[in-house]
């Protein structure tokens, strides 16, 4: 349990609740098909969320100093994999499934543990080609396979 995170989270949830309440006001009031318009439910929930986050904020002030829990150590590995996953998402359509998946897997495997290039290449290749052919040829699904020239 981290005090800082809970504080940050309670303020974020408070803002989210506020956003929903404010934005609900701009939903048109038409109550077609119902006496209650489409804005009531989100407004009420937004208010409840605001109240709950205020309560959480109060609770955080009561925490005894429980800081200093073990922090994760592998930030670098995680960041590399996360960023390459984001790039993978971005290039999936233009570059095509097979190549982007192959490269993503290769980077991720090597980030997890260096070395053993041959087996990582084989596994990454088998997965990306295998899934693509199984899905698009055998099951008749549609995936952007290769870059279009």
């Amino acid at each position: 349990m981290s005090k800082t995170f809970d504080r940050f989270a309670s303020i974020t949830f408070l803002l989210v609740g506020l956003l929903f309440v404010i934005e609900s006001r701009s939903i048109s009031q038409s109550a077609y098909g119902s006496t209650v318009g489409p804005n009531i439910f989100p407004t009420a929930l937004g208010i409840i969320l605001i109240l709950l986050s205020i309560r959480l904020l109060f609770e955080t002030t009561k925490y005894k100093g429980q800081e200093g829990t073990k922090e994760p150590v592998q930030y670098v590995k995680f960041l590399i994999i996360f960023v390459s996953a984001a790039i993978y998402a971005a290039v999936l359509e233009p570059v095509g499934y097979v190549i982007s998946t192959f490269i993503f897997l290769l980077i991720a495997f090597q980030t997890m543990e260096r070395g053993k290039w041959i087996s990582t290449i084989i596994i990454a290749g088998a997965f990306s080609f295998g899934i693509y052919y199984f899905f698009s040829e055998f099951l008749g699904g549609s995936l952007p396979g290769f870059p279009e020239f």
Partner: protein
Amino acid sequence: MGTLDFLLNGFAVAFQWQNILFAFVGVVIGTAVGVLPGIGPMSGVALLIPITSTLTSGMPVEAAAASSIILLAGVYYGAMYGGSTTSILLNTPGESSSVVTTLDGYQMARQGRAGAALSIAAIGSFFAGIVSLIGLVLLAEPLSRVALKFGPAEYFALMLLGLCAVSGLAGKSMTKTLIMTVSGLLLATIGIDGVSGIARFTYDLPILYSGLEFLTIAVGLFALGEVFKTILERDKESGAIAKIDRIVPTKQDLKDSAVPIVRGSLLGFFIGVLPGAGATLASFFSYIAEKKFSKHPEKFGKGAIEGVAGPESANNAASGGALIPLLTLGIPGSGTTAILMGALIMYNVQPGPLLFNDHPEVAWGLIASMFIGNLMLLVLNMPLVKVFAKIIQTPKKYLLPIIVAISFFGVYAVQYTTFDLYLLLACGLLGYLLAKNDYPLAPLVLALVLGPMIENNMRRALTISNGDFSIFLTRPLSLTFIIIALAWLLIPLLMKFKGRTVVVNEED
């Protein structure tokens, strides 16, 4: 047609060759999911939804829904079998419902009785599976007939009860749990409002008109969240696996565990039927009960076979029992059943009292396939337990990136948008951060699935009453549900206030 005819028709569906295959694939993957620590039944089921939906894409809608729910439910109860394997052999539970199995199971393994523990767990799970099925068959019709009389006010109150039950038991902090529930309900309002047809919170982005896709959020929060956690906090490599010598339990073992299996099955089934209390609580209570009933409570924790037989039967029975509120009332009682419900809705099959009338093929096919699936699990688990135990040695460096790739493939294959891939990554990050700080994820997913239905029923009830909110309190059934819902939230609070420890349900 009586229940028996429906059941026979269900068997006709379940015995179609593709459905036998689907049940088989489901239980095998489920066992693997149960064995692998890190992937629980929830992420396992969520990850398989896109794959089943492509596998069934050529079939008629009803048959496709039946086949895919057969596979997904197989993953769910298969995971209950698999979870015990690692608890016994490695002292690391594959998922939370097998935590108590480590207490006596691992001790048994250290005494060289691993085989007996594993086979008793499998036999107990099988028996429990059959018990919960009989319960399902007996209760399904009457319950759905009662539920057919419900009006929108009753439905609203009942769904509120479901949400409160899950929230009341879900996490360490009630505030955090409620925040997650309300956030889920709010996320569910994004998109075109089903009643008035007005777009809400879409900011003219066409991608938001259909709302945030439940599947993307579930896969992101559970599967990716878990992957990110394992990458960041790489735990120590697991220890040596205990050796399995003889698999067949001795007569004494069977005698000792017969009663705990029956007791665990019944207890687990009833706990499973209750919303909010899932397989984890069931196994936990069963262990306490066995210890109380035992003539030698001192043996517990030192390799008592009752301590394996009871809880393992209970968690399997609970997973069957949890299907009852889902199928008959349309109210999922746990995270995994919420995901199953989302899968059914994707096929335009609405779980609830009408399910048994409108889609008997789906409902009874599923029930019948669970008979077959449980039998397969017993047959698979007895001789192949050594093979399954090997799955745990899959190197994480290959497993984790492949889970990411499967999530990407699954989400893209169903949604065809890059937006959903970004949403998936964001949910993965959020899932990791929230779970790490004790914000339970299951209530959010449950609220996301139930949100539109709660809102529609509320507004329909209010239309009937001309905007008078007292309709929820003047109708006796709806009032009862609301009182129970409040009690579910208040009693744990009161108990905490009095300084009692409250058992919380881990995600399952």
